């Protein structure tokens, strides 16, 4: 995607017009107002302003200032320190950065942080209870659904989205549900086993409860 489309619905021109009409005080300039203001005079076209944003991540509100072009993955990793979300392609091609947005799997590198406002963001850190593993994570350990582990948080989140939607997936459902997540180590056979095992375990536990 082009840089322009990354900026989404908010046009840079609008911001700069805003600056011109004296609303500068309501925006914070990075990296430092004095330097930026000086640079603005000299080179206003190149300056990108930060805007306030409230995100709900893993059940907690976060109040942030971000450049409009910032992706959700960048906010999660760089501003919130949630480095469990990995970025492998930064271009919506591999699923490494998969998180849940209102319970649906999305590529966080391909979504503007601003577009996640008002939605529930869940990351790999958010599916655990303290230090305790989510059953899908446990299944990935038990069935060795990983090698290097770099794609693994994304795989786990894709599996979580799949099982939320379809708690009893067939093997084919797993293949389809997980097909947006590339694993270059190709731990796929064990990833399939891990997801099926997690589903089966969850199924038998609900059966017991009944």
């Amino acid at each position, binding site marked *: 995607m082009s840089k322009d489309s990354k900026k989404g619905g908010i046009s840079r021109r609008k911001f700069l017009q805003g600056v011109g009409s004296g609303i500068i005080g309501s925006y914070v300039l990075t990296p430092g107002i004095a330097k930026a203001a000086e640079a603005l005079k000299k080179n206003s076209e190149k300056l990108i302003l930060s805007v306030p944003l409230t995100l709900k991540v893993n059940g907690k509100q976060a109040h942030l200032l971000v450049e409009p072009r910032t992706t959700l993955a960048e906010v999660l990793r760089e501003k919130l320190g949630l480095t469990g979300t990995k970025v*492998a392609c930064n271009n919506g091609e591999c699923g490494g950065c998969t998180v849940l947005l209102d319970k649906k799997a999305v590529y966080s590198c391909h979504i503007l942080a601003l577009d996640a406002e008002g939605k529930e963001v869940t990351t790999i850190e958010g599916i655990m209870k303290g230090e305790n593993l989510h059953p899908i994570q446990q299944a990935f350990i038990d069935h060795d659904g990983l090698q290097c582990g770099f794609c693994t948080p994304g795989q786990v989140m894709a599996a979580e989205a799949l099982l939320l939607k379809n708690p009893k997936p067939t093997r084919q459902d797993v293949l389809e549900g997980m097909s947006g997540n590339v694993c270059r180590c190709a731990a*796929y056979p064990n990833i399939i086993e891990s997801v099926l095992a997690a589903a089966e375990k969850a199924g038998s536990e609900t059966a017991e409860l009944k």
Partner: protein
Amino acid sequence: MARKIVKSRYYGDEGLIETMAEVPVDKLKAWGPDAELKVVGKPVSRLDGYEKVTGKAAFTFDVSLPRMTYAKILRSMVPHAKIRSIDTSEAEDLPGVLKILTHKNCPVIPWHWGTTVLFDTEVRYQGDEVACVVAESMQIAEDALSLIKVDYEILPFVSDPSEAMKAEAPKVHAWGNIIDGKPSLYSRGDVEKGFQDSDVIFEDTYSTQVVVHNPTEAHCSVVSWDGDKLTVWDSTQALFGVRDAIAKSLSMPASKVRVIKKFMGGGFGGKLEAGKYSVIAALISKEIGRPVRIALDRKEMNLSVGNRPDSVQKLKAGAKKDGTLLALSHYSFGNVGAYPNDADCSWPLRTLYKCPNVRTEEYSVLTNLGRARAYRAPGHVQGTFAFESMMDDLAEKLGLDPLELRRKNYTEIDPVSNRPYTSKLILDAYQKGSEAIGWKEKRKPAGSEKGRFRRGIGMASQIWWGGGGPPAYATIKLNEDASLHVMAGTQDLGTGTYTFLAQIASEVLELPIEKIQVTIGDTETCPYCSLSGGSMTAPSVSPAVRDASEQMKRKLISAAGAILETSESNVKYSAGKMSRLDDPAKIISISEVIEKLDEKMIVTTGAREANPEGYEINTFGAQFAEVEVDTDTGKVRVIKVVAAHDIGRVLNQKTLFNQLHGGIIQGIGYALMEERVVDTYTGKVLTTNIHDYKIPTIMETPQIEVIIVSSGDLLISNTGVKGVGEPAIIPTAAAIANAVYNATGVRIKSLPITADKVLMALSEKN
């Protein structure tokens, strides 16, 4: 415990390695085939599983330091040019930009054996380094790149190796386009006579494409200075190699450079070398006095950090009517890109079968494209595709079962060195693998299938080195609470290194695996181990851990003897307890011993023993593939792969099977879809992301059956392990190509076997 220095000789990714190494004088007896092992070989879950499934694993990509800055490299957009001028003034004015390095202000640091420098004034491929910006944020660094103005004097370029070999071709370097100016040659026997004596001659040309490693974690470094001391977090397969290369580039002592890598997101051979990016980051970091993070993006990953060279291989075989090979010849050339490397691929032809007369002639050709690097079994993957395709063709021509032809030419000794192998169980692999795939019952004559969907079965053999060797050391610390800490300067690529090292110590000292902690990936705190390539990590490092653990056991027995007032021979060690044989009630635990010794910990260091003299150490195997070809669309689907391998002892069944799965599926990518596509009119790469560059997804997963035919190689080391990372991928493409032939009766001689090639071949046949 006594040690000596010996000459060590073994094969790695880059061919024969000869080095001096410190090894134990007395070799420990290897675990025999029926040793009753409780932990080793068992499907133990990864020790680092928790970190990885939670995303807490600290990859280099995740390292973040206070006051860290961000670097981004400007790369050449053209395949060949001289830089007339660079104007960085506008970029420097951008708020947040801290430093820009170009050839104008960078020290001259030789790179690629002096064929270029860190920032050259001549760029030789799309992706060559032109400048580097360091800024307060990644975004600012990226913005600044677009403000740098480079005036290029465009030079003629060449992308196709067959063009590059011609005398009139544009020169990538002034000294020519062929590495060493000549082919690399090998011969044995009298090839011409061999062909004359043959009843049947078969000749054909096979070709393979360039493929790119594309590990999920980008090549990246975080560098930080502390006065004259440099710490580098790097996503690398070669800690000590990176340390030495950086120290050399910066003219500083290696002892002042510390390289750390706890976890890495894949390497596959692409991360065996130090990258320019690490040195660039270190130079800038020193100047600005702040840590620098540099991470390549996916486009850079596809342009600038290596690939498997392509190949054109003209093969010729001569055989007797009964299939006995009399002569083999191999002529090939491959594209190594803009800087030296080699594209040789004839090892499988030289060594897989007994054949008295062999000749090979191989050219490594420079072009204006990204440089090749080692990629999972370099040379063997492309060589095995061609050679094992040809063996299939030859079998057809002779009217022999392809498996029979291979059995017929089996050799007990290495045909190049004439030394025996420490072990070779390829016949077992043929036997068990063929049974598992249903070779006899299911396989029909080639091309006899009718209908739209046609199934076929094919196979291919595998040979690789993978025996490892010294030097490799491991230090273990036994703590007062009977927990154990293993330290070794090796790397984990996702291959299970943490886990199997712990299993070895757990086995010897009978301590629960939960009590064992493993530290690897740090040049400062760990003893030396070699790089992780050539399938040598497990075979090199596991015996050192066993040595250290056995020494620890002896120390404990000795201490217990003294404390329990008896001779060492009267002390029995069992699960962390030492007791008197004559009076089992007199018993003492590890904690009590260490408390009495007043040491808080006991430390031992083990070493990998020397490889046996006069032998070759190789891994062997065979893979069998079943495919289905859709004759309407040309699409090939791999239904099942049986992988039967001789890889010595299995250390961990779970991680081993996983690694084999991974190699096979990467092999499917190589066979059916992966290809770096170049527009030869512009010299530019068209596949610079992983949408255009096709990597197998979960949808391509076939049924995979792994059969390990070996139980431990008693001659090589005390653990009897050979490596598996590379054997896994070597025969896959050839087995698939042979299965496609069996299904359709058409031979696809160039990889990848894409739908268009299949359709074209089918229509030519009809």
